[in-house]
């Protein structure tokens, strides 16, 4: 599409500025040499990075976030792959209702998920900890993963598996030699997304976390105490990790799409919710 009118161009630029200037300001002031968070910007320095990285509170929050995101993405990868195969392949009448149940959490506000999970954990006497955070994050991330995995599976040509069966491959070989080589880039991409979603999740975590803290919670608690560029540093780091993961996810999706290009499908447009 071409931008024809100057008005549309101006509005587009204004909207992009509105979106990205606040982000740029956060990043810019993370490199500020003084403790001031307002203009004028007096000079570059890495002192706040050194300060944050040596802060034990930050380090444990980072470790916790990585721990939670890693477990969440691994569990989601396993359960999500199984569920997507089941849903994509079953001929059962339960397929529709099951899919609805799996995807429902995507429509629920984080506040609602967080609160109901909290009530649940308290009722069944599970102590709040990083484990409960992982469980809650799995609930939250699962439908996003499933969406991509099912899209990938439904794009597979079922005739390829028939051809493999015809050539003597049993179900296990068909899965590893034919299906997986075609869908793994998308599964890796979806896992990166799961990691990113978990890594910067705040609302649900807020409800179900016990005495520990994750990075988003750390930022929030720092905000209440001090206002200096160390928050900008943490935010910038968080943003960078998330951005890189999304980028990786996108590249894997692109790779899968390029493989599929021979059959003329535009996969990226459909499965990457950008």
């Amino acid at each position: 599409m071409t931008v024809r009118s100057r008005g549309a161009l101006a509005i587009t630029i204004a909207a992009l500025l509105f979106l990205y200037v606040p982000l740029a300001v956060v990043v810019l002031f993370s490199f500020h040499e003084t403790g001031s968070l307002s203009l004028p910007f007096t000079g570059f320095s890495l002192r706040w990075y050194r300060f944050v990285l040596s802060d034990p509170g930050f380090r444990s929050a980072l470790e916790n976030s990585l721990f939670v995101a890693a477990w969440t993405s691994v569990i989601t990868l396993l359960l999500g792959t199984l569920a997507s195969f089941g849903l994509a392949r079953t001929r059962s009448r339960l397929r529709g209702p099951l899919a609805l149940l799996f995807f429902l959490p995507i429509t629920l506000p984080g506040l609602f998920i967080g609160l109901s999970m909290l009530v649940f954990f308290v009722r069944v006497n599970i102590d709040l900890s990083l484990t409960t955070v992982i469980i809650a994050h799995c609930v939250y991330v699962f439908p996003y993963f499933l969406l991509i995995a099912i899209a990938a599976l439904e794009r597979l040509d079922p005739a390829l598996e028939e051809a493999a069966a015809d050539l003597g491959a049993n179900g296990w070989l068909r899965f590893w030699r034919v299906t997986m080589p075609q869908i793994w880039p998308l599964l890796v991409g979806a896992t990166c997304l799961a990691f990113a979603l978990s890594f910067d999740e705040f609302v649900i975590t807020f409800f179900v976390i016990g005495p520990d803290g994750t990075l988003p919670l750390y930022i929030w608690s720092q905000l209440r105490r001090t206002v200096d560029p160390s928050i900008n540093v943490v935010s910038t780091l968080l943003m960078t990790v998330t951005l890189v993961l999304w980028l990786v996810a996108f590249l894997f999706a692109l790779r899968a799409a390029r493989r599929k290009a021979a059959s003329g499908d535009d996969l990226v447009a459909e499965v990457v919710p950008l």
Partner: protein
Amino acid sequence: MSEQAAAVTVDHVTHRFGSVVALDDVSLAFREGEFVTMLGPSGCGKTTLLRIVAGFERPTKGRVLLGDTDITRVLPHRRPLNMVFQRPTLFPHLDVADNVAFGLRVAKVERAERDRRVAEALRLVRLEGYGKRRADELSGGQMQRIALARALVNRPRVLLLDEPLSALDLKIRLEMEVELRRIHRESGATFVYVTHDQREALALSDRVVVFNEGRVDQVGAPDEIYHSPASPFAARFVGDANVLPVQVTRVDAGEAEVAIGGQKLVVQARGDGARVGPAWLVVRAEVVRLAEGGSLRGIVRDGAFRGTGFTYQLEVAGIGEPFKAEVTSEGQAVLLPLGSEIGLHWHPSACVLLAREEDG
């Protein structure tokens, strides 16, 4: 059916999809080493039967035998037969050689033997040297040849082919027909071929099975099907014949007198309709000669030049549909003008009479 060993026997197979009957009590035997084609319009059940033989569908009723072994309940990956699909189903993540080697890898054939057989299979389909190419770098015809090589490398007793040429351009299709005949001769396997293209069926096969609405209409050699169709359906579907409703008024001494559009003709008493009463008279378009005189006359409604001759559609009194005639330019040098009246002639032995129920 024959004293020759049957490679595959289809024994009273009925198959339903829900309430739709795709195959209705079909029994067939495919002989060892023959090229047999199942021919019929789309939806006649021919592909379903192929998929039942391959194991992708389990028949509602009936059995499938491979040699003497009942394989009805054997899963597809345990059946020693291979299939070439309508679309080239090459694995996109593997190169050509790995595609061809797929079945050998699964069967754990050791490497040296595998490489040798892959090279041999590529040579058979005349694509030696293409091993390192990716599947999407090939043309449609090349992809189908690789699919053939991928199936034949496993040395199947029976090769199933599901309209493998239907997605190709006419020119490549004609080349591939020559290739298929050669590959069949060289491999020695039984080829079971499915197509809706009667020309392809006649050109390729040792035997043709004509399917109509889930039933076998006729089985026979291509020339037999062509010259002695067993039903109006086979006559119309194979080779596009004129099928005319007539009354047989007299049969004696191998000759039948028929009434058609108020005219009387004498034809050879051949076919199951050669008895007094209603019948179908089957006349191939290319046996018709157009000349002055004769009792049966038609008016030219359409004429077209076809290189080797002309094709005409004529209006004949007493016949609902247009009468088709193909004449060579040898017999007739110029196109007849539209609207002209001409006599229709054919040799008395060049037609068949088929039984017809009296129309109620």
